[in-house]
């Protein structure tokens, strides 16, 4: 018996390579194309034009996409496990909206307080996640009810966000981009501050992910096997909130990565979280970078925000999940 035998191991090993490719493409392609040699030169020579394009525009954007994609996807995988609901995702149940509200509040106080945004986003996300979890555990709500409760809570949070926007009209412009989800104006500073939260959280998830397999057996069975179910769930919710908060703090309300990528990972590599979680992180980064790339090359010189591209692809994917769920084979 091997500990880790899973389908498509070769594809899994190719994922990091694929990610590197997409990262390179993300640095090279755009309104001003760079060849690979220009990319190499730009990374080495601080006086070249390529250097400026890279370090002021492409690199923050690429790193931002990398971090947000991985964070949102892992956040989704965690929430789906904790809520035992395959239709949960940080955007579906309002965790992203909560993070957005947190960010917006900081933005309205001081738009330059970049270092506080991930923390505010984290608290917004955490409060929302705990609220949903409380609704789920108090009412014993069915899986569908849980999603509806999430939709209701998102709608309330979005209304509060809209209120703040009304009182601080100067936020309107940036909020418009924020609510769609975009990496276009990501700065290195924002990514750095988000990474301070997201990277330790990702590391922590990797360390504790094995027990997600035990939690997936159901609350009673997991408890009987000796898992401290409540404490473990709380830990996972906090980690999911940190990750969603970090991504939303600069990327805005990027939808669907958190919902769909964990499914993609499970379909490709099976439900073992030891594989599915790292696969979600890699696939999340790859898909977000690809969608961003699509958004800025498809109709160049016009640029679509990554959130718009994701809404089209993700909406279709969501419908696919609903139809598949009807067949009862959704894991």
């Amino acid at each position: 018996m091997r500990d880790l035998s899973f389908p498509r191991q070769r594809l899994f090993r190719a994922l990091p390579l694929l990610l590197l490719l997409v990262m390179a493409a993300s640095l090279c392609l755009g309104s001003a194309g760079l060849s690979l040699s220009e990319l190499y030169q730009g990374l080495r020579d601080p006086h070249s034009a390529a250097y400026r394009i890279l370090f002021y525009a492409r690199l923050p954007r690429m790193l931002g996409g990398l971090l947000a994609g991985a964070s949102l996807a892992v956040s989704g995988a965690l929430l789906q496990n904790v809520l035992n609901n395959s239709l949960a995702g940080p955007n579906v149940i309002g965790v992203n909206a909560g993070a957005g509200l947190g960010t917006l509040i900081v933005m309205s106080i001081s738009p330059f307080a970049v270092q506080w945004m991930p923390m505010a986003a984290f608290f917004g996300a955490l409060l929302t996640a705990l609220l949903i979890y409380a609704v789920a555990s108090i009412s014993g709500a069915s899986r569908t009810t849980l999603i509806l409760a999430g939709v209701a809570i998102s709608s309330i949070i979005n209304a509060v966000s809209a209120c703040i926007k009304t009182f601080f009209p100067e936020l309107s412009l940036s909020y418009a981009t924020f609510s769609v989800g975009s990496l276009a104006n990501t700065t290195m500073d924002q990514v750095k501050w988000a990474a301070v939260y997201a990277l330790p959280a990702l590391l922590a998830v990797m360390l504790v992910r094995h027990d997600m397999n035990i939690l997936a057996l159901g609350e009673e069975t997991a408890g009987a096997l000796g898992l401290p179910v409540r404490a473990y769930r709380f830990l996972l919710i906090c980690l999911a909130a940190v990750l969603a908060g970090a991504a939303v703090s600069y990327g805005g309300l990027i939808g669907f990565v958190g919902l769909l990528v964990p499914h993609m990972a499970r379909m490709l590599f099976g439900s073992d979280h030891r594989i599915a979680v790292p696969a979600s992180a890699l696939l999340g980064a790859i898909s977000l970078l690809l969608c961003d790339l699509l958004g800025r090359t498809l109709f160049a010189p016009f640029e679509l925000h990554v959130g718009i591209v994701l809404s089209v692809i993700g909406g279709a994917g969501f419908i696919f999940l609903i139809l598949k769920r009807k067949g009862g084979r959704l894991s």
Partner: protein
Amino acid sequence: MIELRHLQTGFDGRVVSRDLSLRLEKGRLLTLIGPNGCGKTTLLRTLARALPARGGEILLDGQPLQSYRRRALALHVAYLPQSREVPDITAEALIAHGRFPHLGFSRRLSERDRIAVEDAIHLAGADGLRHKSLKTLSGGERQRVYLAMVIAQETGLVLLDEPGTYLDIGSRFEVMEIARRLCARGAAVVMTLHDLADAMAFSDRICLMDAEGVIRCDGSPGQVYDSGLLEQVFGVAVQRVTLPEGQTQYCFLPRHV
């Protein structure tokens, strides 16, 4: 082993059973029977500490049950609830999860763990199922795999909640046989059953609870039959039949036929 002293069970602020006193012995199969809602499952869940005891005490090897840490408890008591999730993993992976309380921080299976898993697969007759996904298994096969998981846990006490429900008769008998084999290795097995004929045929000892959650009769199947309480509690007629081969069987019939 495990001892209940004046145990009061219940949940959501509701008392189910007021005063339960029992001693469980190693290597014996004890079945809890009683009408719906009498508190069989509540008792089992309290023994597994999935519910807190409302009064009295439960002693495990002389120590109060609540003094055990979750993980330490899982080394002594295994519990298979009736409703479970069916994750999309192989049977073998599920059975290996039974070793969870034995694993260290790395969560890697040691050689000892692998032996226990192989042994459990063998005991439950789940060899042909190991590489199949749980999702593709039939109800009976799934039950066998879950039993193997519980066996792999290697505990002295095994609690099974309605292990035979929703299974066809062949699968049900197999489940009972597995429970018997588990007893033969020295474990104390406690299960709840709805099917009285199964309970009478496979148990060493039966506790009959009435609708008020009181244990009315505690003894071997023969003693429970002789007490006449089966008729009273369930409102049915019971016949003892001795087969030509000498085996004793119990038949349950509607009272006025």
